[in-house]
């Protein structure tokens, strides 16, 4: 299959969906400028012009309501936020109207708006520009929340969003934009509520969210060198969440590490751990471990920023701890050195 970058996949999904459905339009700060949201809206703007891909005034709360109002009469708005952190300002319209519309008015139709929010991980983006807000969105019934970690999922989840019936938040991680991978040519949807086993394994299950699904694969390579065969699950969709996939893997491995880009408390990592405790208990052979940023805002200074975000090393270490805690024979596992620099 031909390969695209994560960013190219988003652009292609946008263009193909807009071709297939004239009711789709793209709105957001800078969607029509020379940067085109890291290139993801350039082609759509070139093809469909200012009428369907347009810049907007600042004002995130109203823009969300405006998207809702357009969707209420048949449009399919795709609103882009260069940073998902700006979406705190959308929360009222998003969680308290869009998410509730279909149920609360019980008039059949919902408001299938799609909000893309980019997670600005890295390079000193700091406390207010590098958060990853999936847990805040996912808490609310009525929304679908996706966290693509591969080019194929970036395309497939956007296709699902633009062809589905639910209001959707898609969180894209800036650190993945240049990642290359195979992407289907056509309009193939990746359904919400379906995770993916990105690496089969038998010793332990690593569930990764957003960028951490990618880091989990790198961690699995480190673990392989240590003689540990980890199974990696990319959650892909946080609401609905693919419980069955996690539980199936747990039945096989009996051990679980959850790696998330956001904080532990009431985070997605808490939800996955809770599912294990509620429905995977009989399979569990060892305590679950969460690998997340510590309880502080994101710092700017590089050494702090590097220490703040989970990485393959911290994920791998957590796995080894779980395996040891479980007293499992870790087949002569040597401790992972912090100095380890794998061939990523």
């Amino acid at each position, binding site marked *: 299959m031909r390969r695209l970058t994560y960013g190219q996949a988003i652009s292609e999904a946008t263009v193909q969906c807009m071709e297939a459905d004239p009711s789709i339009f793209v709105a957001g700060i800078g969607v029509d400028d020379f940067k085109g949201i890291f290139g993801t809206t350039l082609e759509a703007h070139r093809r469909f012009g200012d009428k369907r891909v347009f810049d907007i005034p600042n*004002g995130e*709360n109203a823009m969300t309501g405006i998207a*809702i*109002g*357009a969707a209420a*009469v048949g449009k399919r708005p795709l609103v882009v936020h260069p940073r998902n952190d700006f979406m705190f300002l959308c929360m009222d319209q998003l969680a308290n109207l869009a998410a509730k519309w*279909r*149920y609360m008015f019980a*008039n059949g139709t919902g408001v299938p708006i799609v909000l893309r929010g980019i997670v600005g991980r890295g390079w000193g983006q700091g406390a207010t520009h590098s958060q990853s807000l999936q847990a805040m969105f996912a808490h609310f019934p009525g*929304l679908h929340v996706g966290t693509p970690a591969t080019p194929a999922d970036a395309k497939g989840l956007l296709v699902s969003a633009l062809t589905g019936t639910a209001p959707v938040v898609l969180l894209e991680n800036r650190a993945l934009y240049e990642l290359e991978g195979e992407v289907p040519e056509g309009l193939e949807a990746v359904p919400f509520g379906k995770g993916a086993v990105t690496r089969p394994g038998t010793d332990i299950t690593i569930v990764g969210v957003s960028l951490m699904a990618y880091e989990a694969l790198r961690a699995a390579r480190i673990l392989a060198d240590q003689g540990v065969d980890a199974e990696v699950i990319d959650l892909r969709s946080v609401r609905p969440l693919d419980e069955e996939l996690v539980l199936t893997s747990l039945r096989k491995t009996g051990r679980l590490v959850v790696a998330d880009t956001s904080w532990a408390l009431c985070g997605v990592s808490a939800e996955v751990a809770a599912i294990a405790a509620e429905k995977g208990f009989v399979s569990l052979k060892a305590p679950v471990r969460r690998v997340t940023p510590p309880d502080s805002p994101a710092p700017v200074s590089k050494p702090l920023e590097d220490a703040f975000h989970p990485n393959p090393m911290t994920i791998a270490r957590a796995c080894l701890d779980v395996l040891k805690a479980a007293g499992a024979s870790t087949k002569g596992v040597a401790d992972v050195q912090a100095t380890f620099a794998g061939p990523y």
Partner: protein
Amino acid sequence: MDRELGRRLLGDMIRIRRAEETLADLYPAQEMRTPTHFSIGQEAVAVGVCAALHRTDVIYSGHRCHAHYLAKGGSLDAMVAELYGKETGCARGRGGSVHLSDPAAGVLASSAILGQTMAVAVGTALAFAMDGLPRVAVSFFGDGTVEEGIFHEALNFAVVKKVPVLFVCENNGYSTHTRLDVRQPASVTIRARAASYGLPAQAVDGNDVFAVYDTAQTALTHCRSGAGPAFIECATYRWREHVGPLWDHDKGYRTKAEVDDWVARCPIKSATARLLREGLCTPADVDAMTRASQAAVNHAVAAAKAAPFPAVEDLTLGTY
């Protein structure tokens, strides 16, 4: 004035008044378990504006939405059933008094969070503009809603994108129990602040249904011309308590004299007087309208009481 129009405006106000007075009387029976904001005294705004709309135009409202819903043609039976929490309600009992909608009649949504539907109406108007349709979206909101940031964002966007939305501010002088002058600059009117966004903004006596109708007509013509949004500020007054069926002039935040003064300027009374004066209707006509409206409400109440509650198995139905 046109005879049919005049009678329709009066008839609609009577219809709404009868409905709300009746529901207010029944409310203490505790069968309507939903916080309810009555529009009694403010009917002329809803009726004057909605009478000027086309069937294909749509409206959005807020927490005080009964009058808007009914004036635009929302089903009375479905509204009453909704207040009684029944499966036959316009939101099948899920939404309650503050979430009325009747898409078939062009009542797209009402919301209990201040300002939410202002932006939503702009979005609907944006869609109309994109499709080159002559339809207009109306946003009804109160003077208190003007203070929310979304008011500013919605007006700015509507003007910049030239969308056919009519903003109707129902200025009843209070936000819950707080007077306007405690909440907004005393030196500038809401109309004037709206005008500063570069859209035509008109103030009108919100208790004069004929004046509201004429003002709405002019504003709507502007919207339909493709020139963008328009704004109307309607001065009116809420008779009953902010939420609930009772009178509250003894609560200290307003005087009985103030309430009496506004009750004396009842929009229905003055409209009736004018139609009689101009010979456009007779006392008998008014009685007939009133009786017919009352009968309709009584029927709606009886039907609502008899209707089934939603089935508990359907608790999460429609969420996604």
